[in-house]
């Protein structure tokens, strides 16, 4: 068929590029000469070379994402690739040049979809346990998380898992490549307090007490009753925000004017609680650490936050600038303080 003939055409060129023992020759011409001609990315030779790198599906076109998408859509029935179970359909073109297992069968495609769906669910389960819970779009792939643009052209191409087949969903030994003492660092520095008896044993004791209970008190402006939230049960800032909403939702309803319609109340509450973390809503979430300073929630890695937060507060955003000293303000104040202290000539420092 067309594909296999294109492949046959492509293969000899590939073989040309695979060197024999003596030389590394490109299509005609010594390697050095060939390479020295290439100055920039735009040179013709390079383009031809790049296009011939076994991407028969893309030989005729410029790398425009949209046209590639269309092509992939057209070729979507021919999917089955060498590796079970998951493969991205957009890379079908690239792989076809190298693999022989191209089958233009509708059933193959359906099987692929079913497999992808199953894998997607696996991934979804993994995500739940890791609590990055925003991507439950059926078979849609794991990262990127909250920061990434929510809809990209790539993801509009059907349900296509992005991760590779080789153990993508399962935790892999030694990946990501971080040395073990770094892996332990975040968890141990979060839970580790002054380790052995040193100067200040009383403080070590106080600190140990804090380590035990993960329930932190949380108060909200305007609500007289405080609650407690279990930080260990939340795995991320988003979860915490939801938990806070659950805790105080009822109170807000009770406090509001009972003549208002319930629906609008709920809508308003949703809005309030969804903006707790970014500071743009009516309320903002802050926390106090062991030293009594209030800081905005969201700046430090989650596990570090869990270990240091001693109290939480939901403040009205309007009050932030007055009552709350944010971290950077504290730092500036202290800096100013110290600079002032030390500018005084030769006074006794404590």
């Amino acid at each position, binding site marked *: 068929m067309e594909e296999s003939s294109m492949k046959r055409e492509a293969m000899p060129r590939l073989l040309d590029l695979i060197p024999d023992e003596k030389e590394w020759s490109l299509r005609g011409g010594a390697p050095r000469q060939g390479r020295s001609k290439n100055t920039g990315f735009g040179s013709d030779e390079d383009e031809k070379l790049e296009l011939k790198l076994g991407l028969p599906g893309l030989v005729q076109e410029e790398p425009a994402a949209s046209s590639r998408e269309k092509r992939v859509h057209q070729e979507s029935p021919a999917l089955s690739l*060498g590796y079970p179970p998951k493969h991205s359909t957009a*890379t079908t073109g690239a792989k076809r040049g190298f693999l022989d297992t191209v089958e233009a069968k509708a059933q193959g495609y359906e099987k692929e979809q079913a497999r992808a769906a199953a894998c997607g669910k696996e991934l979804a389960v993994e995500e739940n346990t*890791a609590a990055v819970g925003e991507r439950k779009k059926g078979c849609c792939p*794991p990262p990127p*998380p909250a920061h990434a643009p929510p809809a990209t052209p790539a993801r509009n191409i059907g349900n296509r898992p992005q991760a590779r087949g*080789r153990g993508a969903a399962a935790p892999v030994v030694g990946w990501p490549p971080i040395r073990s003492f*770094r892996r332990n660092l975040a968890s141990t520095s979060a839970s580790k307090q002054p380790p052995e008896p040193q100067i200040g044993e009383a403080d070590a004791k106080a600190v140990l007490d804090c380590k035990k209970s993960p329930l932190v008190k949380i108060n909200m402006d305007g609500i007289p009753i405080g609650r407690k939230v279990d930080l260990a049960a939340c795995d991320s800032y988003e979860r915490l925000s939801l938990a806070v909403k659950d805790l105080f939702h009822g109170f807000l309803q009770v406090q509001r004017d009972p003549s208002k319609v319930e629906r609008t109340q709920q809508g308003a509450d949703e809005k309030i609680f969804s903006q707790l973390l970014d500071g743009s809503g009516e309320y903002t979430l802050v926390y106090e650490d062991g030293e009594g300073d209030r800081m905005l929630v969201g700046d430090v890695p989650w596990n570090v936050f869990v270990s240091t937060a001693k109290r939480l507060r939901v403040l009205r955003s309007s009050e932030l600038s007055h009552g709350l000293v944010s971290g*950077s303000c504290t730092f500036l104040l*202290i800096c100013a303080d110290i600079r002032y202290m030390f500018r005084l000539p030769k006074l006794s420092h404590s």
Partner: protein
Amino acid sequence: MPYFPDEVVEHILGFVSSHRDRDAASLVCHVWYRIEGLTRRSVFISNCYAVRPERVHARFPCLRSLTVKGKPRFADFNLVPAGWGASAEPWVDACARACPGLEELRLKRMVVTDGCLNHLAHSFPNLRSLVLVSCEGFSTDGLATIATNCRFLKELDLQGSQVEFRGRHWLSCFPKPSTSLESLNFACLDGAVSANALESLVARSPNLKSLRLNRAVPTAVLAKILTSAPKLVDLGTGLVAQSNNAGALPSLYSAIQQCTSLNSLSGFWDSPRWITPIIHYICKNLTCLNLSYAPMFRTVDLIGTIHQCQNLQHLWVLDHIGDAGLKVVASSCLELQELRIFPANANVLASTGVTEEGLVAVSSGCRKLNSMLYSCSRMTNSALITVAKNCSRITSFRLHICLHGSVDAVTGQPLDEGFGAIVRSCKGLRRLSMSGLLTDSVFLYIGMYAERLETLSVAFAGDSDDGMIYVLNGCKNLRKLEIRNCPFGNTALLAGTHRYEAMRSLWMSSCDITLGGCRSLAAAMPGLNVEVISQADGGANDAKKVEKLYVYRTLAGPRDDAPGFVSIL
């Protein structure tokens, strides 16, 4: 000139210090080989099993400084089972017999026992420098022996090693009334440190230039240390400013102000935001800043701190600095040469740190960058192409996208084009580590363009044997090839049969090679040790898949300390 006196050659070679130049000189003729061997003072052994220690001493009888590396690099990521080998004992034994005047010993990824340290301490009275990088197997008792017996020790560096804690006494064992210590690094030590011993040690070490403390050292002690060692150039802080130590802060600030030579800072550990005033005092001189052990830092403080350090050349930081933080780095730290971003959270699926935007920002702002280690959650080809254009001086580029097999986050394509641009544009690239979804194309680019490449690390990449073949055939300067979880089989392995002797080592794990292929390689190349590391039983037939393969060239033949799970074919 037919006659060239040996003494002249010897004199000239005395000025040649680089290992490679000396290696080249020794190949000129027998005379030069002999003279070079007699005069070489510093020997670097990149694989402890490549040669027997006795042979090294026979060729270089006057050596004074020995550097030996042991386990393959993937041992750092728990891919090499414990007990694999790389014991320092044979090397110390041979040295003790042949070269008692040894002055410097540097070991990396080796197993060093307390007995070994004891032997060291008693055999080398002249020892000036002991550096144990990522080593294990010893305890603070061993350190005590070293401190007690090596009276002229200038440098004791335990970077990254695992040390068993058996007491705090070792710090008091250093010589009295004064020591020659110039550099002391025990940052990796778990366990308490005697404050008095430490303060007294620093007070009696007038030459101390580099001091890296572990996290057990509180603020008050740090303040006293800095007061007595104002000439410090490199400082790794202990635990700074926990609430109980807040009272010591002013003395710390005043002590830091006196350290006008301080240009390198690391440590911080659990220190929260109070550290920023400290850095503020020395930010003008700071060239190296390592905040990668400090997950407690808040993003806003990180940014505020780094913004002031305009002369920074080396920056190691965790990824919660975010893209916004990296943009600040790009605008403030124009002298930056090395940047390393580590993940704050090892949980692959939860990482939210930096993205390709940060990388692009840094590459356009910091034009002097030559070494990058970037851990991110997503990447795009166009970002990599931009980086390649901006920073063509890069010699070391390591990109770790936390979820393996990730595609271009915008187009959904594999990241072949991006890495292709990097190898093509960065002509001096010597070290490359890749991640993301990669097909055989990227290996073709590497084979074609990466002429200077010496170390290549590959994981979850490639489609077929062609990938590995391209690299083996193309990269003439390749020394270390590390592959994991790639679909390369026996054809690929055997394609490089005649390459491996020119390389230091090859590591392949979770690939498609079988025992039969490894046996063929071993049979064809007797100059290689083909080690199969396999912990599952299952017969020894040729079709059996090989879990882990480590191939290295050697003059020493099969090693005799191989444990049961290693079979040398």
